[in-house]
């Protein structure tokens, strides 16, 4: 495991990379110069030495050629001038050979020079002898040939030196050429190495910058995509990138904290809104806010004039310093009741604005550090104020915390208003119950009080009709029938009222026995046949039994009686009342159809309402209480069924009841 390099900054990395590049360029130049220049100088020095030797060698051959030429002239002409020229030329030789010797000291050519000089010495001895022959004398041809051979030998030596020098110069030129090639190769190598090193440095530098930057960008992408658990770790990254990574991580941590706070806030909202009493909601709120914000004190102070929060509610953390008592007794009259802005401060005496002195003193008693006070309520209805306190040394409020606190204040307000409404509703319900009980008692009493006199009326009527008190004439019988009919109506009304009141108070007995609706329907035939024939109405039954239903026989019978008596009652002479009953996709369907006066379309929706009577019924003075159909509808509903009406005025009406078919036990 290698420990990460100490962090550096991006600028430093780039400077280092550039410095390395420049150093490589300079170094390669210097290396080239330092290695090539001395070598080239040496070669040049040697080349100029060769040139000097070659020049000196030429200077040696010049007097020898001149002397031989002059000697041959003298021997041919015997001229003294030629002889003189010979001697002059010979005298130039020693200087020339001395110069050649100087130039060849320490060289490979020194031996050749000595050989040349020996050959010149041999030639000069023979030449001097010929020169000594008097003018006009012909020397022996052998001597002349010998001198020519000797001079040729001497000149050959000199030329041999030239040849050697030419070879050396060529070698030197070759060396120079090789050196140049080497230099080019070395420079190219250095350049390639430099490029490679520079590339490596570049890659390394880029890596140290782009890799961590890429991680940071990745983490930022994750964060912005909502995956706020994303964190970035960039060990050994440059300082600037490490700083950015730390900032990104801090953002993530903050987002997580805010999310947690958001979750906790939602849980608290639910808890605060749950209870139905103002006391419970407020107590839950102060305790919850304390936990939510890691606060030391929380209190809710009632606003003057409202009746929802009866008294201040406080909460303090177990080990919190300070006394909340004075603050609880200080009214928040300094925060405008119609403001939406909470009071947020890093301390009770912050700035010199609000709060005023009594509040500040009370905050001091509570040892308040950071304070937040929010109104609970809406613009025109302030219920109170919630104050959240952290003691000094704890964190100040973040923007998010203030927002969360505002939401909580709004939730508390909602809970308090709901509790208030619930209390009001409870009172109203209790009052309604009392009223309902009074109504039931009243109905019960009235019915009792009505039934007793009715017993006497009907009883004595019966005695009279039965002629227990003596025979009656036909007029008396007719009159007594009128009384009997109206007494029966009165009985029916009292009966309907009682059933209605019992149904509303839920005290109507409701059996659940298995019944055959077909039997119930058929049984009504005998009840209504006489009535129908009296009214001149045809009564027809089409019942496809058995029709098993579960319910209360007496109540279902009441339904049938009501519908049939209505049908007969509202059908003019010559009309027809049909009862169809069958079972159809899980339901017993009972239809009571008449060819009566029908129901005006406007009245149909109100038909099942209490005491409602269609206006064509009242217009014709057809008796009725307006309770029958509402009782029918209530009974059908309590049996899990539905009732529908289809009517056209003047043509007739059909009531259709659907009741669930009872499963065989």
């Amino acid at each position, binding site marked *: 495991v290698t420990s990460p390099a100490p962090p550096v900054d991006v600028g430093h990395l780039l400077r280092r990379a550039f410095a390395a590049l420049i150093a490589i360029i300079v170094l390669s130049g210097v290396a080239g110069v330092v290695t090539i220049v001395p070598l080239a100088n040496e070669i040049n020095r040697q080349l100029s030495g060769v040139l000097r030797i070659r020049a000196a060698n030429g200077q040696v051959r010049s007097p020898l050629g001149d002397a031989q030429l002059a000697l041959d002239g003298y021997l041919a002409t015997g001229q003294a001038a030629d002889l003189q020229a010979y001697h002059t030329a010979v005298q130039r030789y020693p200087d020339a050979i001395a110069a050649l010797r100087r130039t060849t000291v320490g060289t490979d050519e020194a031996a050749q020079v000595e050989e040349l000089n020996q050959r010149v010495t041999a030639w000069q001895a023979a030449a001097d002898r010929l020169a000594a022959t008097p003018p006009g004398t012909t020397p022996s041809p052998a001597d002349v040939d010998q001198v020519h051979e000797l001079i040729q030998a001497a000149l050959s030596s000199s030329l041999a030196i030239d040849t050697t020098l030419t070879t050396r110069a060529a070698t030197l030129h070759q060396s120079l050429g090789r050196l140049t090639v080497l230099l080019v190769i070395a420079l190219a190598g250095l350049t390639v190495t430099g490029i490679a090193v520079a590339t490596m440095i570049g890659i390394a530098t880029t890596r140290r910058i782009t890799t961590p930057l890429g991680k940071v960008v990745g983490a930022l992408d994750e964060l912005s995509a909502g995956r706020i658990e994303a964190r970035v770790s960039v060990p050994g990254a440059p300082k600037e990138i490490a700083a950015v990574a730390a900032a990104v991580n801090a953002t993530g941590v903050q987002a997580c904290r805010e999310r947690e706070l958001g979750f906790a806030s939602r849980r608290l909202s639910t808890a605060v809104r749950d209870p139905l009493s103002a006391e419970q909601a407020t107590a839950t709120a102060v305790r919850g806010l304390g936990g939510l914000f890691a606060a030391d004190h929380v209190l809710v102070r009632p606003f003057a004039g409202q009746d929802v929060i009866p008294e201040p509610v406080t909460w303090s953390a177990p080990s919190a310093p300070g006394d909340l008592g004075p603050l609880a007794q200080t009214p928040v009259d300094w925060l405008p009741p119609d403001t939406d802005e909470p009071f947020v401060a890093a301390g009770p005496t912050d700035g010199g604005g609000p709060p005023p002195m009594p509040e500040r003193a009370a905050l001091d008693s509570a040892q308040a550090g950071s304070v937040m006070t929010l109104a609970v309520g809406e613009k025109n209805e302030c219920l109170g104020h919630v104050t959240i306190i952290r003691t000094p040394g704890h964190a100040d409020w973040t923007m998010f915390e203030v927002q969360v606190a505002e939401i909580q204040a709004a939730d508390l307000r909602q809970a308090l208003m709901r509790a208030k409404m619930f209390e009001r509703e409870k009172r109203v319900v209790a009052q309604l119950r009392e009223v309902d009980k009074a109504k039931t008692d009243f109905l019960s009493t009235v019915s009792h009080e009505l*039934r007793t006199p009715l*017993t006497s009326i009907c009883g004595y009527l019966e005695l009279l009709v039965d002629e227990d008190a003596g025979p009656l004439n036909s007029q008396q019988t007719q009159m007594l029938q009128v009384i009997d009919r109206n007494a029966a109506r009165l009985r029916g009304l009292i009966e309907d009222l009682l059933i209605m009141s019992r149904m509303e108070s839920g005290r109507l007995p409701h059996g659940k026995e298995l019944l055959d609706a077909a039997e119930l329907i058929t049984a009504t035939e005998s009840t209504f046949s006489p009535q129908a024939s009296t009214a001149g109405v045809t009564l027809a039954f089409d019942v496809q039994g058995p029709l098993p239903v579960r319910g209360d026989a007496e109540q279902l019978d009441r339904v049938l009686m009501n519908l049939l008596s209505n049908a007969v009652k509202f059908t003019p002479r010559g009309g027809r009342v049909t009862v169809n009953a069958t079972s159809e996709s899980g339901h017993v369907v009972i239809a009571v159809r008449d060819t009566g006066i029908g129901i005006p379309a406007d009245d149909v929706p109100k038909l099942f309402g209490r005491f409602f009577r269609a206006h064509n019924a009242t217009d014709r003075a057809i008796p009725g209480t307006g309770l029958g159909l509402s009782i029918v509808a209530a009974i059908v509903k309590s049996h899990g069924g539905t009732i529908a009406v289809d009517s056209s005025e003047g043509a007739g009406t059909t009531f259709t009841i659907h009741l669930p078919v009872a499963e065989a036990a």
Partner: protein
Amino acid sequence: MALVLVADDDADIRDLVLFKLEQLGVEAISVEDGTAAIEAVRERRPDLAVLDISMPGLSGIDVCRMIRAEPEIAQTLVIMLTARAQEADVEGGFAVGADDYVTKPFSPRELTSRIQTLLNRARA
């Protein structure tokens, strides 16, 4: 001859029932409240008592309960009269041992026929 006691706080109803019973040849006496009713049962030992449930003082239910509690008169037949044909009243009546009940407004014909039925059954 059988003796029937009629207890009702309404004189018209008492007279109505008495009239109908006398017409049928049944001996009948009447009282107007519960206290008088239990005393009459103890003294006159009627075969059957028609008791209105709601009477001032002792109710019909109370009287019926007392009748059933005293061995000497416990066998007296009881028909309850109620103006409130509610389950609670009917059940209350049967719970204390009434033999039958009739709801107001009742038909005198029906009441006397029920009385006769009970008396015949007791005699048989």
